[in-house]
């Protein structure tokens, strides 16, 4: 049943069209770029380019990579890192979005919170690491706190900006049409600032990964950052590179997730 269905789909003109589009000249150039990179890497090692001659061969990394992919511990590290990311990130949204909306809609709340907020915001999240380690009882909680910090300030500032940038005419039009303040908040302010909320999430997710990796290297047990750091202490160069690639892939995956979330939440932003 399933096979015929798949075959049918494969043969459909749409799929063929897509396959053709996938194999167009620009995709080919992209493939050339990637192959070129690997060839360059190979040459660097073969010709023992100064300072870079310690690099493992691409094939060596690929082999270690294949082995690593089969290990349970590796995937455990993925799980640990993702859990830390999402714990901090989700709490940051739960606290940050309402705070940003409140600051954007109430002058009193903004006056009371914004100066303190602006004093803390410029501190790079990584600078919170020592305090976080001392302050929280377990290293795990310290890391949750740090990933939270990574996303929190960016979320709040984006939501605040989103709310402030809603054209005054939209609020006026809504008020004229009979909207009560609660209608204006839920039906105008919230959806109107959604694009900024999603932007905040996208940027926040990037920063959260930065902070997480630093935090794991310093304080963590397990996780992709720790894995990479331990590979360094063991002088296992191929594993360092596998760690780096994994972190990149994980970050990319998380950003794609946010983008997908944005597409679902904002159907009106779709390109037509």
């Amino acid at each position: 049943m399933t096979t015929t269905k798949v075959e049918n789909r494969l043969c459909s003109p749409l799929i063929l069209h897509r396959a053709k589009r996938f194999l167009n000249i620009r995709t080919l150039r992209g493939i050339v770029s990637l192959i070129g990179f690997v060839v360059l890497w190979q040459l660097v090692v073969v010709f023992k380019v100064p300072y870079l001659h310690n690099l493992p061969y691409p094939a060596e990394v690929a082999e270690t990579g294949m082995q690593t992919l089969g290990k349970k511990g590796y995937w455990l590290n993925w799980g640990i890192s993702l859990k830390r990311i999402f714990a901090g990130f989700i709490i940051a949204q739960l606290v940050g979005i309402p705070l940003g909306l409140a600051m954007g809609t109430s002058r009193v709340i903004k006056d009371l919170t914004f100066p303190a907020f602006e004093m803390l915001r410029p501190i790079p999240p990584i600078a919170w690491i020592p305090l976080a380690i001392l302050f929280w009882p377990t290293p795990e909680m310290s890391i949750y706190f740090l990933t939270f910090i990574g996303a929190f300030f960016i979320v709040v500032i984006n939501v605040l900006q989103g709310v402030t940038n809603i054209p005054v005419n939209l609020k006026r039009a809504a008020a004229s049409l009979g909207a009560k303040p609660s209608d204006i908040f839920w039906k105008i302010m919230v959806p109107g600032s959604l694009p900024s909320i999603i932007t905040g999430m996208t940027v926040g997710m990037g920063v959260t990964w930065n902070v997480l990796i630093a935090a794991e290297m310093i304080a963590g047990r397990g996780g992709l950052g720790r894995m990479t750091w331990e590979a360094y202490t063991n002088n296992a160069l191929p594993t360092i590179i596998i760690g780096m690639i994994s972190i990149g892939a994980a970050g990319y995956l998380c950003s794609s997730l946010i983008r997908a979330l944005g597409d679902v939440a904002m159907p009106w932003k779709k390109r037509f």
Partner: protein
Amino acid sequence: MKKTEQNKQSFGEIKVEGVTKTFLDEGKQVEVLKDCTMVVPRGKLTVLMGPSGCGKTSLINLIAGYEQPDSGQILLDGEPVNGPGPERLVVFQETALFSWMTVLQNVTFGPSVQGIPKAVARERALQILQTVGLKDFKDKYPSQLSGGMQRRAELARALINEPKVMILDEPFRGLDAMTREIMQEFYVNLFQETGMTNLFVTHDLEEAIFLADRLVIMTYKPGKIKEVIEVDLPRPRHFTMITTQRFNELRQYALELLYHESTKAFADGCKSAFDLIDGFSRGGAKREAM
């Protein structure tokens, strides 16, 4: 026609009585409106013109209830206006459609926040969308519509609430010339069918005369009413009227009044007065061509 006469009673009349409004601009008190008095009569299309910065938008914000006058009062059928409400609806210069709602959701926004049952609102909305020619576009988002369609959607969103007065603040600004003419004709037909009280602000003198029953010309700083011109062109209006002698007489007369005020604004360094003077010279060139 009879129906229109009956409907007229349900439309409102706006009285602006001795309204003064001052703004604080860079620490300076600027008197935008001073002792401004005018009437927007029931069932008439009143067009408001004046140089940029003469307080047209301020006057509209006051009538809509977004702002309160410093002194004087604004009355709708004798009742003072205290805030925004669906009996005085505004169609704004740049589109104020909610971009996150479909056309249908935009149009039913008013009824839904006013607590009118969904099914009733939907049916009424579909009727109105049919009238403005957007029925097939009801599930589109505003960004998927052309400029002209957006303005029609906005008109529909206002009309569904059966306002007593419609206020339009340069609603056709930014549309290309062709769409603009079509929209003007569409709007003037709509007005002729409903006979609703309308207050229409524009920078375009031809548009003003083509649409208006009464053309109100404002002075520059402080803004008050300079003169009211009764536009006695017959209805229904048609675009061929633009070339009639009476149309040209009215335009010439209004142009002189406006020109005087605009040069005042110009001398005052009001940047946007350039638009207006520019607009006049183009109007003049067109006339010569004819």
